[in-house]
């Protein structure tokens, strides 16, 4: 777009307003945080309302609001349906969330699980995968913020990106997981209402008949259910999504933070409620051609249609919705990754006898540090958003089978898991570079699966589940 629908003043005002409200929220909630468990795991007793909302909000990233329309614009119907199948990650994780809370009620991170269940080598391999993914996601979110503000308002990328990071680091630092969860709840409502308004206006203004007929005439592939490229991407994207959720501490920390009996319900509900959202945002993109709108680049098709239909107000809506989507994921990622660094790296490798008070302080420093490192990496704006995140598909998909089997099987042992993670990742990366990004997660998952199967057949580790219950005492 060559004009900026939002003035720089408006953009800055909105940012400052959100900043003040969120940071105040973070400070207010943070006053009641007494212990490490309060800070990292919101007291381990979160109820269904907050639990459901935070799972939804965290999985609604800027991608859901920007990339879903982009993929629909590029791949048509399968773009949006394929994208919405990412909800499977939440749905399939639901029983696992329950199992995690039962197996290790005193645990803090997914790293804790891998370390006790599979041993130190597997744990290191897993941490490498986790960090590659976490940093990839953090940086892509930081960049998305900068790009969004630049496109909608002309506010320079560096300024926009910095301000969003400062706000998120600020309230996460002050309030811990409680601040993350509470802001997530508000942000979920904002996102859903915003998406609905834009979707509804689109439906009223354009209508299905016109969208259908115009695309059938001029862009027929968009309506094609056998769209070759989309079919190829489908399962790769599903495994990518599953890998993201199954392995990441973002979801494990929540499983541990929710009250017993809440985890399964919360994840199931959030998955089912998340599922239609990419379809609504995707539909907006299908309407672009009929409105005569062809974006400069496909990732801006969503905001372009919204601004066209609702005028400058539409652009402000988009801004608020995408900001909320960004913030609700950024804060979760900062908190969860800080938990991993503090608990697994600092407490696990550097200072094994650190007191909880000390870890509480360290985790705040880590949040600050992570925010800073993210900011540094975001500054040069090296690569496009999609490419960055796709790369991590090779890493995370290798964790799916080790985690599922590890939670429910006693046979699988650490050495095979290490091999599965390492060889899976390498296969995925080879596939990525020789064939294309759309096989990275698939190859990784296939290789990891085969190694796990061999591991199950060949060796019986006979793991004792009690070891996970006793996690604290083994320190």
């Amino acid at each position, binding site marked *: 777009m060559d004009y900026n629908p939002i003035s720089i003043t408006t953009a800055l005002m909105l940012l400052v307003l959100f900043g003040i409200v969120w940071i105040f929220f973070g400070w207010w909630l943070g006053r009641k945080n007494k212990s490490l468990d309060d800070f990292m795991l919101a007291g381990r007793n979160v109820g269904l*309302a907050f639990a459901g909302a935070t799972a939804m909000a965290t999985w609604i990233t800027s991608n859901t609001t920007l990339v879903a329309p982009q993929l629909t614009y590029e791949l048509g119907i399968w773009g949006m349906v394929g994208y919405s199948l990412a909800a499977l990650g939440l749905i399939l994780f639901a029983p696992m969330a329950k199992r995690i809370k039962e197996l290790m009620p005193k645990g803090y991170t997914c790293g804790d699980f891998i370390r006790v269940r599979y041993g130190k080598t597997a744990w290191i391999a897993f941490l490498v995968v986790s960090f590659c993914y976490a940093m990839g996601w953090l940086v892509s979110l930081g960049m998305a913020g900068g790009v969004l503000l630049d496109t909608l308002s002309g506010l320079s990328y560096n300024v926009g990106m910095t301000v969003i990071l400062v706000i998120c680091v600020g309230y996460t630092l002050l309030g811990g997981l409680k601040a993350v969860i509470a802001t997530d709840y508000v942000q979920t409502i904002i996102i859903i209402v915003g998406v609905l308004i834009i979707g509804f206006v689109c439906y009223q203004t354009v209508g299905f008949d016109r969208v259908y007929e115009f695309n059938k005439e001029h862009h027929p592939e968009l309506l094609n259910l056998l769209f070759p490229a989309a079919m190829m991407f489908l399962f790769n994207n599903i495994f990518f999504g599953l890998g993201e959720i199954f392995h990441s501490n973002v979801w494990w920390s929540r499983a541990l933070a929710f009250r017993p009996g809440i985890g399964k319900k919360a994840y199931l509900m959030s998955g089912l409620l998340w599922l239609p959202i990419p379809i609504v945002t995707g539909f907006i993109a299908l309407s672009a051609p009929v409105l005569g709108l062809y974006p400069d680049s496909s990732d801006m098709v969503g905001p372009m249609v919204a601004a066209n239909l609702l005028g400058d107000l539409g652009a402000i809506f988009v801004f608020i919705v995408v900001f909320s989507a960004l913030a609700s994921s950024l804060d979760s990622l900062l908190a969860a990754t800080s938990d991993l660094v503090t608990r697994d790296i600092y407490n696990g490798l550097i200072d094994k006898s650190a007191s909880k008070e000390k870890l509480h302080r360290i985790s705040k420093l880590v949040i600050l540090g992570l925010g800073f490192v993210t900011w540094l990496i975001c500054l040069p704006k090296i690569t496009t958003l999609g490419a960055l995140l796709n790369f991590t598909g090779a890493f995370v998909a290798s964790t799916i089978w080790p985690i599922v089997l590890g939670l429910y099987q006693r046979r699988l042992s650490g050495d095979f898991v290490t091999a599965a993670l390492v060889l899976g990742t390498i296969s995925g990366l080879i596939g990525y570079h020789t064939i294309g990004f759309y096989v990275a997660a698939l190859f990784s998952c296939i290789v990891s699966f085969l190694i796990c199967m061999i591991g199950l057949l060949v060796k019986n580790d006979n793991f004792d589940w009690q070891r996970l219950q006793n996690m604290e005492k083994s320190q």
Partner: protein
Amino acid sequence: MIISLEALETLVLTAMAVTCLSPVILIILLFKDWMKDELW
């Protein structure tokens, strides 16, 4: 093989309907948790 107009309509309208319900569900749940003092 192109999707039919009816199928497209059903898909998107259902999606919008469910999306309409979700804030309602979340607010009711919040209220219930708050009344039972089970927010967190």
